[in-house]
C-alpha cells in the first residue's frame, strides 16, 4: 500500500500502545525526523513512562516540531494520538507553520497489542487500558478529517502495516524545477490589445484560432510566461485575455496564479452571491456574449489555479499580492489569502480603501518575490520584491519582468479604460524608507559572499552607539575602510618592520606583482561625491562626518569640481573615493597635543633637568655613571620621538593647508571597481591631482615584481629614503586590485603596511629601538589583526557589491555595520 505524504507535512501516527508505531517510524524515517512522546517524557522527567510528565513533554515536543516545520522539515510525531485534544495540539502546530497535517493510523487487533505490551518490561498497565485505547481509536477514526487532517491513511492489520510504503508528493506550488527563462507579466485587467503588444515586444508569436482570436503564444527561445493574476475586470476584453492565457497555460507555455478578481469571478460563476463592483459587471457582460462552454472552461480554469508558485530552485516566488517569506512553499488558508489579497492593517485611507500592511518593507528573504495587485507608476525593487502592476487599465502601462535577467519591458496603455479610485502611489511614498534596528542588533550571523562572520551582540551594541550618535546618515555610509595588518615582524637588525617582510608576506600569499604605495600620515577619509551634489559626504574610518558641515561642504565642492571629468568618463553620477586627509594635525590636533606632544614636552623638560642634577652630583665626586648614561640615551630617544610626530604637524586654517591624497576609486553608480588594478586607481588619483594640485596630494608608488630581486632592493631603498625624510612608510598591495584572491579563491590581504623605524616611536614609545625591547616586540602576535583585517576587507567588498547590484539599503548597511562592530574586537591598537 502506497501512502502519499506531502514533502513538507506534520505526520501524526495514531495507534494504541503496542500497535508498532515506533517500529513503523524507524522503518520509514530518520531518527531525527521522528519526535516520540516517550523520548520527550524521558527528557523532562527522566522516565519515559511517567504519565504525569506528559503535559510538559508535549509542550517541548510541540516546540521542537514548530522549529522543524519553520525550517521546512518534515516531522513525524510518534505518540498514541488517541485523544482529540492531543491531535488538536498537533494540528495547531501544523497550521501555525502552514503545513498540512497528515494522520497515519495503525490499527492492529487488541489481542496482538496486549501480547506485545506484556512482552515489554517497562509497560505495567493492565489489559483494560489497552481496551480503553482501542475504544478511543475507533472513535477517533471518524473525527480525523473534521479535526483538520488533510490526508488520512488507515493501515488495518499487521500485513498492511508491513507492506506500507511512503511516497512523497510535491506541493502544488512547488515548481522549483522550472527554470524558465520567464517573462512575468503584471495585472492585465482585460487589456487584451496591450497584452498582445507586450507579448510581441517580448518576442512571442501569437497563435490564433479560426476567428483570428489569439488562443496561444509560443516563444522561439522556449521562454515561459508567468501571469501574476488579475487577468479580468475593468478592461475592454476580459474573455479575450482569458482565452489567450488559458490557451498558453494548457499548452504548457505559461503559468498563472489567480488574482483576487479571478477569485471573485469564480465565486460568481459558481453561483455565489458577490457584490457587482470593481469592474466585475463589465466582465460578466462580456462573458454574456461568449459560448457557455467557454464560460464553464473559465470556471474550471480559475478553480484549478494555485495561489502561488516557487520557481527556479526556490529563487523566484510569484503570487498576486506578494508573499512573506514564512509562507513561501507553504499551504494553508491564510497563505492563500495572503497571496490573493495581501495583508491589511485594518485601517482605511482617505479614499476609503484598505491600508495595506507593508510586508515588502520587512521582507528579508533570498527569493525574489514578483507580484502585482497594487498599481504603482514605476516598478521598483524593494528588498528583493517587485510589483509589476503599472495600472494598464487605468491608462498606465502593462509591464513584464524578464527572469533571470531582471529586465523590465513595458507597453503603454492605449487609453484609460477605467478611472482609478485614488491616484497611483507616487514614489515619494516609497515604503522602505529608513533602516530597521532588527537588521543590526543582537548576535547576528552574516554570509557576506567572501566568507561568513558572526557579530557578537555586545559588538553590535557598541557599533549601534557610534552609528546612532555620531555617524553620517547610515544610508549614505555605504563603506568603511578595513583595518590593515602590518607585515610580519622583521629580523633585520634595528627594525621591527621592514620591506623584506612585506614582500615575503605577499609572495607567500601567491602574489607575483605588488604596488608599494607611500603611506600618508594623516586621517583616513572616505569621500562620496556626485554630479548633483546631493547625498555627498566625507567620513572618517568610524563613519563620522569629517570636520562638520562648515568645512565638509566646501571641501566636497572642491573635490566634486576636480572629479567632474571622471563622472563623464566613467559614466557614473557619483564616485566613492578612498583617501587620506593631510596633515595629521588637521583632524587630530588635540590628540597630538594631549597625547604625543605632551609626552614630548614633559620628556624634553624632565630629562635635561635630571641630567643637570646628576652632573652636579658627579661634580661632587660621586659616581652616577650608569644612571647618567641611561638618562642621556633617553634624552636622545625623546628627541627622536618628538621629531617623529612633529613631521606630521603642519599649520592649517580652516581648509587652508588641508590636502587630500586619493588612492582608490571604490565604486560608482551600479559598479564596484574592486577588481580594477592599482594602476587604474592611481591613474585616476593622478588626474585629480592634476586637476587641483593645491587640494590633492599625489601618492608616490613603485611597482615591484616579486621575482625580481633588483626591483625589491630598489623599493627597499626607496622606503628607507621616504622614512628617513619623516614619512610614515608604505603599504604593499597586490597590484591586481582589491578583490585579489589566491589559488583557492580566498581573498588575500588587500595590503600590508610597513612602517618606518622612526615613525614607530610614536606607536611603541621613544625607547622601542633598544635591542631588548625590539626582541620583545618582534614576538607580537599578528594572527588576530590579520584575520580581522581580512574579514573587514571582505565585508567592505560585499558592501560595494551589494551597492552595485542595487541591493536594498539594509543589505548594504548590514555589512557596513558589521565592519564597525568588528572594530570593537580586542586587538592591539598598535598593530
Amino acid at each position, binding site marked *: 500500500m502506497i501512502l502519499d505524504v506531502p514533502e513538507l507535512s506534520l505526520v501524526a501516527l495514531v495507534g494504541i500502545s503496542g500497535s508498532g508505531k515506533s517500529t513503523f517510524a524507524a522503518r520509514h524515517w530518520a531518527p531525527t525526523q521522528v519526535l516520540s512522546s516517550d523520548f520527550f517524557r524521558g527528557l523532562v522527567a527522566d522516565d519515559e513512562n511517567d504519565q504525569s510528565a506528559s503535559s510538559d513533554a508535549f509542550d517541548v515536543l510541540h516546540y521542537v516540531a514548530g522549529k522543524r516545520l519553520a525550517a521546512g522539515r518534515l516531522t513525524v510525531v510518534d505518540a498514541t494520538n488517541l485523544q482529540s485534544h492531543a491531535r488538536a495540539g498537533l494540528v495547531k502546530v501544523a497550521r501555525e507553520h502552514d503545513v498540512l497535517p497528515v494522520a497515519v493510523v495503525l490499527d492492529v487487533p487488541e489481542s496482538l497489542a496486549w501480547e506485545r505490551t506484556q512482552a515489554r518490561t517497562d509497560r505495567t498497565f493492565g489489559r483494560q487500558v489497552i481496551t480503553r485505547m482501542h475504544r478511543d481509536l475507533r472513535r477517533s477514526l471518524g473525527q480525523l478529517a473534521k479535526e483538520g487532517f488533510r490526508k488520512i491513511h488507515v493501515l488495518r492489520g499487521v500485513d498492511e502495516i508491513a507492506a506500507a510504503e511512503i511516497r512523497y508528493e510535491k506541493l502544488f506550488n512547488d515548481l522549483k524545477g522550472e527554470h524558465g527563462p520567464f517573462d512575468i507579466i503584471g495585472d492585465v485587467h482585460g487589456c487584451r490589445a496591450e497584452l498582445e503588444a507586450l507579448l510581441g515586444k517580448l518576442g512571442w508569436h501569437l497563435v490564433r484560432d479560426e476567428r483570428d482570436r489569439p488562443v496561444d503564444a509560443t516563444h522561439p527561445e522556449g521562454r515561459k510566461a508567468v501571469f501574476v493574476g488579475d487577468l479580468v475586470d475593468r478592461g475592454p476584453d476580459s474573455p479575450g485575455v482569458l482565452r489567450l492565457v488559458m490557451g498558453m497555460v494548457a499548452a504548457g507555455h505559461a503559468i498563472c496564479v489567480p488574482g483576487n478578481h479571478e477569485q471573485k469571478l469564480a465565486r460568481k460563476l459558481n453561483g455565489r452571491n458577490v457584490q457587482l463592483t470593481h469592474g466585475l459587471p463589465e466582465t460578466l457582460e462580456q462573458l454574456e456574449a461568449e459560448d457557455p462552454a467557454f464560460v464553464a472552461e473559465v470556471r474550471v480554469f480559475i478553480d484549478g489555479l494555485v495561489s502561488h508558485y516557487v520557481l527556479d530552485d526556490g529563487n523566484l516566488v510569484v503570487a498576486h499580492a506578494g508573499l512573506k517569506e514564512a509562507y513561501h512553499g507553504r499551504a494553508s488558508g491564510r497563505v492563500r489569502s495572503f497571496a490573493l489579497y495581501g495583508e491589511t492593517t485594518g*485601517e*482605511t485611507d*482617505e479614499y476609503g480603501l484598505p491600508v495595506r500592511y507593508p510586508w515588502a518593507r520587512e521582507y528579508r528573504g533570498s527569493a525574489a518575490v514578483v507580484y502585482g495587485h497594487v498599481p504603482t507608476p514605476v516598478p521598483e525593487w524593494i528588498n528583493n520584491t517587485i510589483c509589476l502592476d503599472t495600472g494598464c487599465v487605468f491608462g498606465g502601462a502593462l509591464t513584464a519582468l524578464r527572469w533571470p535577467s531582471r529586465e523590465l519591458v513595458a507597453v503603454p496603455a492605449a487609453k484609460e479604460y477605467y478611472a482609478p479610485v485614488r491616484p497611483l502611489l507616487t514614489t515619494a511614498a516609497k515604503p522602505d*524608507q*529608513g*533602516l*530597521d*534596528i*532588527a537588521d543590526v542588533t543582537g548576535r547576528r550571523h552574516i554570509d557576506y559572499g567572501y566568507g561568513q562572520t558572526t557579530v557578537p551582540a*555586545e559588538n553590535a*551594541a*557598541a557599533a*549601534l*552607539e557610534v*552609528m*546612532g*550618535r555620531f555617524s553620517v*546618515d*547610515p544610508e549614505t555610509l555605504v563603506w568603511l575602510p578595513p583595518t590593515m595588518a602590518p607585515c610580519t615582524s622583521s629580523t633585520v637588525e634595528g627594525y621591527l618592520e621592514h620591506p623584506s617582510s612585506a614582500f615575503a608576506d605577499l609572495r607567500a600569499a601567491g602574489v607575483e606583482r605588488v604596488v608599494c604605495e607611500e603611506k600618508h600620515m594623516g586621517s583616513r577619509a572616505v569621500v562620496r561625491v556626485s554630479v548633483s551634489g546631493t547625498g555627498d559626504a566625507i567620513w572618517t574610518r568610524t563613519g563620522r562626518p569629517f570636520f562638520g558641515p562648515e568645512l565638509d561642504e566646501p571641501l566636497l565642492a572642491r573635490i566634486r569640481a576636480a572629479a567632474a571629468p571622471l563622472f563623464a568618463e566613467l559614466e557614473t553620477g557619483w564616485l566613492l573615493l578612498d583617501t587620506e586627509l593631510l596633515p595629521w*594635525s588637521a583632524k587630530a590636533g588635540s590628540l*597630538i*597635543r*594631549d*597625547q*604625543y*606632544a*605632551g*609626552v*614630548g*614636552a*614633559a*620628556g624634553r*623638560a*624632565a630629562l635635561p*633637568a*635630571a641630567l643637570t*642634577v*646628576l652632573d*652636579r*652630583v658627579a*661634580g*661632587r665626586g*660621586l*659616581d652616577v655613571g650608569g*644612571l647618567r648614561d*641611561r*638618562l642621556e640615551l*633617553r634624552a636622545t630617544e625623546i628627541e627622536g*620621538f*618628538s621629531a617623529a610626530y*612633529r613631521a606630521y*604637524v603642519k599649520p592649517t586654517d580652516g581648509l587652508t593647508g588641508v590636502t587630500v591624497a586619493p588612492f582608490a576609486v571604490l565604486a560608482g553608480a551600479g559598479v564596484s571597481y574592486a577588481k580594477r588594478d592599482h594602476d587604474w586607481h592611481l591613474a585616476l588619483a593622478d588626474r585629480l591631482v592634476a586637476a587641483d594640485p593645491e587640494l590633492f596630494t599625489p601618492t608616490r608608488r613603485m611597482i615591484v615584481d616579486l621575482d625580481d630581486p633588483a626591483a625589491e632592493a630598489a623599493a627597499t631603498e626607496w622606503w628607507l629614503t621616504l622614512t628617513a625624510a619623516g614619512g610614515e612608510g608604505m603599504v604593499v598591495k597586490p597590484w591586481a586590485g582589491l578583490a585579489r584572491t589566491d589559488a583557492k579563491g580566498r581573498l588575500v590581504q588587500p595590503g600590508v603596511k610597513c612602517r618606518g623605524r622612526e615613525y614607530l616611536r*610614536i*606607536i*611603541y*614609545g621613544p*625607547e622601542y629601538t633598544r635591542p631588548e*625591547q625590539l626582541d*620583545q616586540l618582534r614576538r607580537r602576535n599578528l594572527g588576530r589583526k590579520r584575520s580581522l583585517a581580512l574579514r573587514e576587507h571582505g565585508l567592505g567588498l560585499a558592501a560595494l557589491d551589494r551597492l552595485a547590484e542595487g541591493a536594498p539599503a539594509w543589505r548594504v548597511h548590514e555589512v557596513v555595520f558589521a565592519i564597525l562592530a568588528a572594530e570593537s574586537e580586542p586587538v592591539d591598537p*598598535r598593530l
Partner: protein
Amino acid sequence: MLLTLTTTHRPATDLGYLLVKHPGKVHSFDVPTGTAHVLYPEAEEDRCTAALLLDIDPQRLRAQRDAFELSQYVNDRPYAASSLLASALARVFRSALRGASRDRPELAATSIPLEIHVPVLRGTPELVSRLFTPLGWQVTATPIPFEAELGGDSRYVDVHLSGELRVADALNHLYVLLPVLDDGKHYWVAPDEIEKLLRSGEGWLAAHPEKVLIARRYLAHRRSLATTALQLLEADQPATEEEAELPVTRRAPLAEQRREAVLAALTEVGASRVLDLGCGGGALLTALVKDRGLTEIVGADVSTRSLEQAARRLRLDRLPERQKDRIRLIQTALTYRDDRLRGFDAAVLMEVIEHIDLPRLPALEAAVFGHARPGAVIVTTPNVEYNVHYDGLTGMRHSDHRFEWTRAEFAAWAESVAAAHGYTVTIRGVGEADEVTGAPTQLALFKISEVTA
C-alpha cells in the same frame, strides 16, 4: 620623575639627618616601578639640596598596566611627577614624613627655610597656586611650552615652591598634592586610601579651601570614598565653619522642574504605557516608576553604559517581580525603525533631540512619529534665547549638543512634524520664564489626531 628639596638653614647639611640619607652617598632603592635614587647635587654649610630621582623602567610599568590608566602605550609617566613619585617619596623618606628624627628631633619639629623644585608636573599655574599657597608656600609655576611648530603651552608646569615649613609638612604636602595635580593614580584606589589621605593631611587638609577637590582627586574620583573622607575631615572642624558650608535654600533645579512638567503632561494625556526615549541614566525613569498609574514603562537608550547605570539606579535586580514586570530597558537608536517601540500611549523625548545631528533628525521623526506612533509625544529641548542668563556660558549648554533652538525654531519644527505625521501640538515653557528670553526649557506636547476608521 624628579623633585629637589633645598634648605638654607645652617648647617644646611643637617637635611641629611632629617631625611636619614647621607649627603656624601648616592642612595638607590628598588621600588615597584623602577629605581628611586636620593642624591645631593649640593651639600654646603649654607645650602644643601636633596634630589629624589625616580628612574622608571617602562617594562615594569607596562607589567602593571591593567592596574591603571595606561590605555596608551606611549605616556608621560617616566617624565612627569605623579603618584609614582609620591609612592617613592613615601618609601624612601618614611620617617621624615612622620616628622621623626633620631639625630635632630628638634630640627624636625622646627620650621626652616625650604625650597622645592618639581621640573615637570601636570597642572596649571593657577591650580598649583590654589593648592600650595594656602599651605604657606610662595609659588612660582611656569607652563612648559610645546615646540614652536605646535605653539602654545603643554599641560605641564615647572614648579618652584619656597617657604618656612617643617620638612615633614613639606613632604606630606608633596605626597598628597603631587597625585592630586597629576589627577591619576597608578594603582587601584581602595578604601584604605582614605586613611592614608587623612594621615598625610593631618593638621592642614581639614582647613584647606580646596579640600573637596583634593579629596576627590586623591581618591581618584570615587565619589563615595571622597564623601566619607570629607565627613571624617569635617568631624574635626569647629561648628562655625561647618555652618558656612551649608547649602542655601534655593528653588527646585531646572532638571527637577523639567521632570515635573513631563510627568504633568503624561497625566494630562492619560498615558499608562510610556516610552522614555533616550532615558540615559534613568533620571526620569525613577520618577515614572513611582507613578502607580503607569502599567508599562520602557526606557530606551543608545548607550549600553547608560542603560546599566539606569538599571542600577532603579535597582532592577532587586525589585519584586510584579514591579519589575512594569519596567523594561532596551538599547535602541532613534534613527532606526524599531518595532519594539510600537503601540504605546506616550513617548517622552526629554532633552534628546538636541543630541542628534540636524540632518539626522528626519530619521528620528520617521522612527518615532511615523513608525512607533505613540498616542502622544512629549519633547523637551533647551531654549537657546535663555542662554544669555548663564554667566560664562560660551557656546552650547552641553558639549554633545548638536544644536540649540530658539522658541520660533522649535515651534516651526514641532508644527511641521505634527502636520507631516498627523499629530496636533501645543508648546509650553518649563522653568522660570524671563520676559524677553522666555523659559530655559521648551516643551512640546504632541497628540495623535483621531484616526478615521
